[in-house]
């Protein structure tokens, strides 16, 4: 099972857990298992069209899935999936 690291704002939807293990061969499957187990996470990760929100970055280990195969990116049991908020701004 891959390990998913949960950022602090989303831990309220995982019962306080800072990481969750989920079964799946791809990022899409792993995140699907995560949101099935913790349904309140879904609206925070996906938009109304069912696509990952633009300000949500998903990394497998140290790689951005946008530069791999997006949600079809393969995930091994030893991999760590990180949900990273996009933080930007300015005047």
């Amino acid at each position, binding site marked *: 099972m891959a390990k998913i690291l949960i950022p602090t704002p989303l831990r309220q939807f995982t019962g306080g857990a800072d990481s969750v293990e989920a079964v799946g061969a791809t990022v899409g499957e792993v995140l699907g298992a995560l949101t099935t187990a913790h349904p309140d996470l879904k609206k925070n990760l996906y938009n109304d069209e069912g696509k990952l929100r633009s300000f949500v970055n998903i990394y497998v280990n140290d790689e951005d899935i946008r530069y791999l195969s997006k949600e079809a990116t393969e995930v091994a049991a030893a991999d760590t999936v990180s949900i990273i908020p996009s933080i930007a701004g*300015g005047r």
Partner: protein
Amino acid sequence: MIEISAEAWAVMVEHARSYYPNECCGILIGNETSGKREASVAIACRNAYEGVQKDRFLIDPKDQIAAERKSRELGLGVLGFFHSHPDEAAYFSETDLKNHWPFYSNVVMSVRSGEVRDAKCFRVDVDQTASEEEELLWPKS
């Protein structure tokens, strides 16, 4: 309410000075007990915005992964982020509002003539439609 430690504040001030007249950015790590946040560590990040950095910043997600790892090693958590407004007041702009997540404490430092003159902290509501000022304590001397 969030209190910044002397060590963390020193990192933030030095980072804001070194980036002036551009915007600096970074990550705050600490813990929260009974509603009070204590940021004991500040991580200075590279401004990853590809454009004019005097009024924009972007935190590299890889820096966030590293901060997340460090916070877990220390038994702490990522509490929020900081950035500077060169020659502007410490306020939370529309751009800030659209690009920050709820929950986090977001410290904005006003830097004028290269020196930090003021700082305020803001939290974003769950819909990212409004921000609310959060009480901020930092070492004044």
